[in-house]
């Protein structure tokens, strides 16, 4: 294994451009190092990108820009993110453990392309854009187009993930992020759900819902979102939406849970969140 530790973006893209054989980028290492230890990943070339100047959170007009090397803990605690994208801060705080949150980066969480990645459903409902760069230039990809399967993304082998950008949320936006794991900390999500929308005169508008761990990639629950916008925000609507959303999920059974349970949990998490949103109290 050859290890490179470039200090600039330019140097990095140059190395990426000329390397043959497989290449892995090391950011926080919380996924990669585990895989290398397990022997499921055998890097021929390892590029340590931790020295790159990509650890930042910037406000630009109505945009937020987060550098790929920003740690999950920094995102959780960041004031601009708490103010303008509270759902992302909330999800970041629920990820892993303090040790993992301190090491893991948002770029890594995205590029690793796990369908259970905790920051991704919130980034879906924030309509985030991913900025990639190679030797020649940059390209921007909407997050929902970034993933191509479990552990797979559309990055070319000579590209590096630079930053994530999205529009600030309005104060009037309602949101919730829910996840279920086998225990409280250090547990990979069995199911996660991010919701964003507005409530206007007992109607939901601008609804966006993303689901984690119930399909090969994180997905939007489009039908459910449109359905929720179609009628009065009441208990009948919530019940029906919780049913529809289960049809939108296509979970698998694995050692963490069963497909049946995951499917039902998608409904349960939506129901629970919508009730809390509606009344601050739970049903039945």
């Amino acid at each position, binding site marked *: 294994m050859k290890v490179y530790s470039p200090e600039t973006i330019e140097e990095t893209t140059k190395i990426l451009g000329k390397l043959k054989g497989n290449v892995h980028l090391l950011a926080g290492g919380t996924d990669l190092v585990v895989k290398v230890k397990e022997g499921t990943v055998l890097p021929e070339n390892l590029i340590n990108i931790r020295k790159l100047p990509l650890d930042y959170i910037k406000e630009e007009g109505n945009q937020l820009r987060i550098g790929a090397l920003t740690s999950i803990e920094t995102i959780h605690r960041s004031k601009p993110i708490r103010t303008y994208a509270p759902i992302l801060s909330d999800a970041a705080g629920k990820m892993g*453990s303090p040790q993992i949150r301190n090491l893991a980066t948002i770029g890594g969480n995205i590029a690793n392309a796990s369908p259970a990645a905790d920051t991704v459903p919130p980034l879906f409902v924030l309509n985030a854009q991913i900025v990639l760069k190679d030797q020649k230039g940059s390209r921007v990809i909407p997050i929902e187009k970034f993933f191509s399967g479990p552990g797979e993304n559309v990055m070319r082998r000579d590209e590096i993930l630079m930053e994530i950008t999205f529009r600030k949320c309005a104060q009037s936006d309602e949101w919730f992020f829910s996840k*279920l794991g*086998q*225990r*409280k*900390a*250090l*547990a*990979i999500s069995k199911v996660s759900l991010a919701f964003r929308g507005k409530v206007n005169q007992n109607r939901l508008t601008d609804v966006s819902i993303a689901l984690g761990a119930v399909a090969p990639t994180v997905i939007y629950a489009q039908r459910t979102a449109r359905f929720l916008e179609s009628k009065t925000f009441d208990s009948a609507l919530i019940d029906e939406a919780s049913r529809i959303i289960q049809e939108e999920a296509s979970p698998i059974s694995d*050692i*963490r*849970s*069963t497909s*049946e*349970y995951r499917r*039902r*949990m998608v409904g*349960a*998490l939506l*129901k*629970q969140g919508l009730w809390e949103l509606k009344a601050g*109290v*739970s*049903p*039945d």
Partner: protein
Amino acid sequence: MFKEVGRNVPRVDGYALVRGKPVFTDDIDLKDMLFIKFLRSPHPHAIIKSIDTSQAEKMEGVALVLSYENAPRVPHTTAGQGYPEPSPYDTVMFDRKVRFVGDRVACVAATSPEVAEEATKKLSVEYEVLPPVFDPEWAMRDGAPIIHDEKDSQGILDPQHNLVGEVEVKVGSLEKGFKEADVILERRYEVHYAQHTPIEPHIVITWLDENGRLVIRSATQVPFHTRRICANVLGIPIQRIRVVKPRIGGGFGVKQEVYLDYVAGWITLQTGRPAKIELTREEEFISRTRHPIITLLKAGAKRDGTLTALDMRILSNTGAYGSHATTVMYNTGSKVLPLYRCPNVRFQGRVVYTNLPVAGAYRGYGATQGYFATESMLDELAEEIGMDPVELRKEVHIKEGETSPIFQALGEGREGISQVISSCKLPQCIEEGLKLIGWKKKPKEEGRMSRGYGCAIMMQGSGIPAIDMGAALIKMNEDGSFNLLVGATDLGTGSDTILAQIAAEALKVPTKKIIVYSSDTDLTPFDVGAYASSTTYISGGAVLKTAERVLEEIIRIGGEMLNEAEGELIAKDAQVISKRTGRSVTYEEIAKNSLYERDQHQIIGSMSHISSQSPPPFAAHFVELLVDRGTGKVKVERYVACVDCGTPINPKLAEGQVEGSIINGISYALTEQFIFDKNGRMMNASFQDYKIFSAMDIPELKVVLIPSHEPSGPFGAKSVGEVNINGPCPAIANAIWDAIGIRFRETPFTPERILRALTLGGSSGART
């Protein structure tokens, strides 16, 4: 009153541990050390037709490859128990047959762990795959694959039917008992596999000392049994082996197994070089486990809450080898049934082989499995006769001054010994627990959450009566300090500290005057080791006797120095004092006098202790929990444990044992499980996928020690290490019933199972 006993004396090893001193097995590095890695079977049941080791042996750094072809074949048991051993001799170092996925095929000793690992991959093995059997009920049938068909095993009851052992005892008349009953229930309960998950996995380092003796530095709970078993397997005299146990990072029973020490020992004997084995976490998961047990329980009761008959039939699955197989099976009856006043009882046990990971000793040792059945059944009976479950328990549990015929009928692997309960504060434990939990005080429903309350009562033993022996040696130094040498094995429990407190109390000195050294077969006297909740009670008894003998000697010499008759003297605060004149001599003066001045000799004493009794500690557990009807998740809100462990020698350490057991038990009840593929391979052998409770998951825990005085124990002490793991499974199952009206008779209670049961309605898991 006591001065040293009953106090939260800091652990004698505490500072070294928190400062990261090199105290553990792995904390030494020896020159020219060899590292050993195993090749493990990918098949659940197969014959090794051939092994080609030539490619591995050619690798640079490989010193030795061991397999059935060149390892000594000595049938033995890996269970570190007393002698003659109650477990079957069904294991050899490397066999021609493999019996579960993960069984040892061969091992490589090399100059680095990486080379050793790489070399195991170069071993080319040809297998003849045999049909496996995983279901314990099927394993007993005619025509099932025979797992132990080797000719040289001993002590297997019926190898043709994979039956390791069985037992049946009857007391009174079941027929009469069921005739008298107003209500009869018959239920099937099942408990699952689990692993001890000590933070420090199994590890051993061996080397030859300057005289050619084999030194085994091992994370073991049983140093003296390790020495005996290794001598047998290696074919060398016990005299040639020294076993040293340093600090241990947890055992919980899994280190009561002797199955790596002799492999490293053999490599050292063959090569003359130090050798080390350290299991990976994945290997640790399939090292030894808890016996999964199916219990068929039929119980009869009158409407007033009198138990008239208990018929308990269990089927225990020991996996591929019979380590602790029969003794755990006996304990499921002997540590459980005497808790209940019932004149008509039958206990029938069977334990069988399957092609699954090997079960062994695990905190609770069969009682945990048994209490899930009996304590669930009490709630089911209470429901049926319309009685409060706590009231029913008050009625049926054994009281101080009473005995149970089961004590006599059932022992551990053999008949038991009759005993009368001389200390039992269970009634007080129940009252206090009820008060603290606020039994059924809060509203039942809270949004989509349903609240439930559950309870369970339990007991264990304190050592194995008339079998377990511990010995101690105390010698006095000229500054008035004492060396306490014990065979007893502190595996993180704090027993070195407790034994020092017992010595200090008896010798009338502060605990800091006691220098403890334990578990070294060359230097310390014998002790069976840390198991069966024996250390405080048995080893502590030996320490007390020894200290009393040494004190007599101190007083005698003090009397000579003071010119007083012995009857006129008392020992107090490290002095011998004349009651008549008030004159005194200090221990320091006495020690100097005896070492240097007059009738020079070492003040020293050594005594052994066994007990004809095994006085049970008792506990009452109460849990308040919420079941989320939307997700099926159980959230334990509060857990209260009231415990009678006799006199707590060190209350903080005793509470630690209780808290540890409860967290261990809640985790077993809710999240831990072994997931097997169709070949019997454990698919979740890592902390990533096998979830033990983390700090964040721990509910509000309230532990109350309710002291009793056990006349046969040192300063009134009984055991505390195991008993509390018996509570969480039944207490939680009972509380789930209270919350949602669904009875779970199969552990663990995962959200998936609960949600499914909520959807289907009615009972889940084992059929009634």
